[in-house]
């Protein structure tokens, strides 16, 4: 055993010295053979990404300046300059969609608060930790389409179980949920919170492991209550996690599509329309290809701005 180890170390040492010799002449392994191998390994990924992501982005940039319906053939594309953009930015439906999306972001802090509280409880105060992780994670991995179908029935204004329960509890006029213009968007938020808790909880649990136990022990010796420990130690020290989750939450709120399409299809009376749903309607139902490309670009810029804010915010708002 011992001799084996010795032999191995010897081999490694000789290899090392060989490598060092080569480093003097440049990198140990480089040159055209290394380049070729590199391109061969990343080739499939890079070509696929170029065709399915980079090329579409560049061509939607060109298309957004045209008035065109893809059914009519390329020769009928008409250059219209910035008309699509000026039409889009003054379009009341798009503006409503943006406003709705800002309201949808409310789901993010609600989810964060619930997830952090649950994470702290699960981390410290219960048995069967793994069971709880599985329970709260279930909605997150479930098909959103099926979840939306189930909630359609649960939310039924007169016959649904939720409103029957509310009536039983003495609520005189229970909300019409997804059939009601005022309550449709909050219903969407409710489902977003329900499906999002699992993911946030799991990430928070990982974040909580990074807080040194000595801090809590010291606080306990000083007589700090559990609440004080939570507000003075836990919250500040998981702030990097909170920030990460907040940003991914905001960005993914701009991608909410399946849920709205199946649950309300943007209605009633456009009360749940979002830019992504509007994009889908314009592109694949109204078949306004040029106009839809302009929507894509504006969405792209919005996400870009959010990512940029994240980039600066990271330095400013995160307590390490």
């Amino acid at each position, binding site marked *: 055993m011992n001799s084996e180890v010795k032999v191995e170390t010897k081999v490694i040492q000789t290899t090392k010295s060989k490598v060092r010799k080569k480093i003097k002449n440049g990198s140990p392994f480089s040159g055209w053979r290394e380049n070729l191998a590199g391109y061969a390994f990343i080739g499939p*990924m890079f070509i696929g*990404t170029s065709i399915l992501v980079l090329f579409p982005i560049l061509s939607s940039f060109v298309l957004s300046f045209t008035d065109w319906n893809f059914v009519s053939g390329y020769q009928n594309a008409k250059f219209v300059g910035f008309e699509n953009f000026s039409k889009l930015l003054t379009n009341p439906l798009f503006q409503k969609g943006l406003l709705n999306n800002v309201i949808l972001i409310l789901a993010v802090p609600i989810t964060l608060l619930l997830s952090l509280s649950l994470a702290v409880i699960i981390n410290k105060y219960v048995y069967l930790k793994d069971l709880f992780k599985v*329970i709260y994670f279930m909605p997150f991995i*479930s098909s959103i*389409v*099926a979840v939306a179908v189930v909630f359609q029935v649960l939310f039924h204004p007169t016959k649904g179980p939720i409103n029957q329960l509310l009536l039983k509890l003495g609520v005189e006029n229970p909300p019409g949920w997804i059939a009601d213009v005022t309550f449709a968007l909050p219903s969407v938020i409710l489902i977003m919170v329900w499906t999002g808790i699992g993911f946030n909880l799991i*990430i928070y649990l990982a974040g909580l492991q990074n807080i040194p136990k000595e801090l809590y022990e010291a606080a306990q010796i000083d007589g700090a209550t559990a609440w004080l420990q939570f507000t003075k130690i836990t919250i500040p020290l998981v702030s990097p996690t909170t920030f990460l989750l907040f940003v991914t939450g905001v960005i993914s709120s701009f991608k909410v599509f399946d849920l709205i399409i199946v649950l309300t299809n943007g209605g009633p009376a456009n009360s749940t329309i979002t830019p992504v749903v509007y994009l889908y309607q314009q592109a694949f139902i109204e078949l306004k*290809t040029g106009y839809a490309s302009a929507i*894509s670009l504006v969405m792209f810029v919005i996400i870009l701005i959010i990512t940029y804010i994240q980039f600066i915010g990271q330095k400013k708002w995160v307590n390490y």
Partner: protein
Amino acid sequence: MTAKLDIRKLIVTFIMILIGIAFLMPFLWMISASFKVEKDVLTFPIQWIPQNWNAVENYKEVWTGSMPFLLLYWNSIKVTVLTTLVSCTISCLAAYGFAKINFKGRNFLFLIVLATFMIPPQTLLVTQFLLYRWVGLYDTHTGLILLNSFSVFGTFMLRQFYLGISNEIIESARMDGAGHFRIFTSIALPLVRPAIATYAILRFIWTWNDFQNPLIFLRSKELYTIQLGVQSFSDQHGSVYSLMMAASVSAIVPLLIIFIIGQKNVIEGIQLGGVKG
């Protein structure tokens, strides 16, 4: 002192289990409703255990009726398994290349690939759609598989694992005359096998649940995947709630079982990546 703490912990656990059951109420309701005769679905108070069972008839209609789930399942399994295989292969190769091969322009190309990660997929739909119609991939399973096969997330995650393999092992294998492909298959791949398993499970779940791409890139009913099937099933049977619930159960439960079996891998994978699908 410790005994007292344990009792408190037990009580909290008990309360948390009650909250957990309440949290899963929509699923429990869905399963229970899928077994009922239609007229009992919306009775109140809720019959959690059906009085009149209609399970066989409901599921038979869903699995062999006008929107046969048997076919949808076959389509979904085909698309999901192939996507997972192709995507794992491509990401594994690229991750090794970016982590362990010292080629010209590596950092720049990696940056480009990473940058595409933040682009919201919906903004690509219009031009991807045009491209697919142009090259004839529209309304094919091949096209659908390709759409989810080039994963930046997978490449990034696996690269992190390859970076953890010491360079000395690889360099000494190079000294012995092994090429990169040989090193990749016989040294690197076995070492990152757990990471590949995690990514494969995640990719499987995400592809299985994908609704947006099938909606846009498939038109023929016989090519529909489960998610598309559930939607058009609920359009057809919009007022027969017991059937809709049986369809939802059919879409959700098999995946839940896979998740419960692989839960450690899934949860660790999500924690590592910190990214949503």
